[in-house]
């Protein structure tokens, strides 16, 4: 009896430490601890690094995952080489970057790209060269309406729609204003999801398109507040969002109107920067489960970054996106015959991705062979709380945007 009890205690202790150690060690690819040494598989990523914001976290996370894969048997023995190019937020440079990767380096696919400008410029070339792009983050409309471009994130239109739905649900808001920068492919698209959903559900959502270079945030806030809305949806990059909240706070509107935002506000410097007035008072849609969630895949992402990423690589939602993109591609490549890995077969394999599950995502991810891709169309809602965030939605909200109807059809066909 005693021995058995001791045995049980010892076994539990061993298991516990074993589990703790397993949490520290990332699981990726074949997971056999053997360094890959075959012929490298070339992949590429185009990121907007030098410019109004730094989107490179996505590709850096993909790179960390691939390093993990290479240390664990590679793709059936072959290591992955990811080349990351900065497009400096300049469309010309984005075209050059894509030419470098696709035509000079002859990459088999693009993984973890995150650029504001490259979708419009390169989508056609990717389609012509039959290169699939499993992008970490896409922003303007062209990223979600291209044959070969598959963003893992939800996009500003879906994000604004979800957060509008949340505001209606949580705060019974019947009148909303959605603020969006007046850039083509964003200004006339990204707030319209909320608007169209509102029309179908008895909520009045008006859109204010602002000049992103404007130094005067106060007038915009005053203009929005003049219509006496119940909620204001900020669908702007965080650099513009912070001065807007500052202006709203200075005008005493923080307690009068509910402020909600699409996903760019989900960044760890934001709560401290916007200050105490927004504590418990600012809701944000997240494209993925929160960064601190305890799901197994999320912990694996953290472990991968810890073991294979640089100390300076951000651990934010962009990095989650890059990790997912890399995982999707790795799993697709592992299913292929290692001797027959070329661009055409890789593209086919990627199009066949369906039912990819991760606890970082709300619903299974898929690619499909449709003319456009926007598989991530749901997410949880977080709220600024103290110096961080806390989740305030029970689970995820799915965007009821009329424009997504063709994708819902596809999802039904794929059985998702």
């Amino acid at each position, binding site marked *: 009896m005693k021995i058995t009890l001791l045995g049980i205690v010892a076994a539990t202790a061993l298991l516990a430490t074993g589990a703790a150690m397993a949490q520290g060690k990332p699981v990726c690819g074949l997971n056999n601890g053997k360094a890959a040494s075959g012929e490298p598989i070339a992949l590429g990523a185009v990121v907007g690094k030098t410019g*109004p*914001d*730094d989107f490179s976290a996505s590709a850096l996370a993909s790179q960390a995952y691939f390093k993990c894969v290479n240390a664990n048997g590679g793709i059936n023995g072959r290591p992955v080489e990811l080349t990351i190019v900065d497009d400096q937020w300049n469309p010309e440079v984005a075209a050059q970057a894509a030419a470098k990767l696709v035509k000079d380096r002859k990459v088999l696919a693009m993984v973890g790209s995150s650029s504001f400008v490259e979708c419009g410029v390169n989508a056609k070339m990717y389609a012509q060269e039959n290169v699939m792009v499993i992008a970490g983050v896409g922003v303007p409309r062209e990223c979600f309406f291209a044959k070969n471009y598959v963003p893992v994130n939800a996009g500003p239109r879906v994000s604004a729609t979800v957060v509008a739905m949340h505001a209606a649900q949580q705060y019974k808001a019947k009148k909303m204003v959605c603020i969006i920068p*007046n850039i083509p492919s964003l*200004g006339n698209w990204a707030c319209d999801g909320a608007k169209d959903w509102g029309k179908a559900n008895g909520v009045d959502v008006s859109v*204010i*398109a*602002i*000049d992103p*270079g*404007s*130094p*005067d*945030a*106060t*007038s*915009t806030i*005053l*203009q929005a507040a*003049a219509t006496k809305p119940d909620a204001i949806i900020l669908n702007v990059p*965080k*650099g*513009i*969002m*912070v*001065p807007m909240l*500052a202006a709203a706070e*200075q*005008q*005493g509107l923080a307690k009068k109107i509910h402020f909600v935002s699409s996903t760019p506000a989900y*960044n760890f*410097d*934001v709560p401290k*920067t*916007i*200050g105490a007035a927004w504590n418990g008072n600012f809701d944000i849609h997240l494209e993925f489960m929160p960064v601190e969630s305890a799901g197994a895949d999320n912990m694996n992402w953290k472990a991968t970054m810890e073991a294979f990423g640089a100390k300076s690589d951000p651990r934010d939602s962009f990095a989650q996106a890059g990790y997912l993109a890399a995982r999707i591609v790795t799993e697709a490549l592992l299913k292929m015959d290692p001797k027959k890995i070329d661009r055409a077969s890789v593209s086919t394999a990627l199009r066949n991705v369906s039912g990819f599950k991760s606890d970082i995502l709300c619903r299974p991810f898929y690619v499909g062979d449709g003319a456009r891709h926007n598989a991530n169309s749901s997410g949880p809602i977080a709220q600024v709380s103290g110096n961080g965030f806390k989740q305030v939605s029970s689970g995820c909200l799915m965007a009821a945007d009329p424009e997504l109807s063709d994708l819902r059809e596809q999802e039904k066909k794929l059985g998702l």
Partner: protein
Amino acid sequence: MPDLLPFLISGLGVGAVYALSGVGLVVLYRSSGVLNFAFGALGAVAAYVAWSALEHEWPLPLAALAAVATSVAISLAYGRLLAPRLAERETTVRSIGTLGLALVVLGFTEWFWGEQPRRLVLPTDAGAIEFADVRLTYTRVLGLAAALLMMAAVGLLLARTRIGLAMRALADQRGLSAILGIRVLQVDTAAWVISGAFAGVCGLLLANIVRLQATVLTFLVIPAFAAAIIGRLSSLPVTVAAGLAIGMLEAVAVLVPGFSPFRTATPFLIALLAIVLWRDASRKA
């Protein structure tokens, strides 16, 4: 007709920004003949220094001092080491030289501090004057007061003091003034120090009122040029009035349907109008 007054008042905040920067630009132009493209960049680096100091729990006066000292130091270094080498060239080339300085300072600031949302919070943000449904924080009132004060102070400096006279002489005819015994080095130092101090203060206020972001702050110098142009690069009171007017009109433009997404063009439109209407007065620069 929606209520214009709140927007006019809120526009005063932005207007003070334009007025202050305009005065800073005209000051340096009148005292050294150089149009300083780096004015915004110097302000930006000062604002970031202040932010870092505040993050490290420095008291505000010390942080502000460090910030202004930074912009003064860089301005002085340029004015004493590099500007004299371009002194023989024409005005435009000397101004393009400051563009080089702007690139160096902007590039360094963005590289060193990186991209992350930041806000420069000043204690004067806490209080505000309430006026017709709009609240004007004390910081903006301070900006307004500073613009008017600087205008008077610099006007007096240039018109009534010896060093002001020396500055104007040097800006006009450098070689001749040197022969006449004006102490070129001393006067140059004064001009660039004043300009650097201006840039630092403008940068702090701008970072609070607009956005603490290096590229935005650097290129806010272009609308500031609009205010300076309307003042014909010489009259400080007109520059201040122009800056305030531009700010108010840009704010009110939010109400004009169809024009609202283009309202950042207001400073340029007004400057162009002013040039075209007062063409005879602005024949030579």
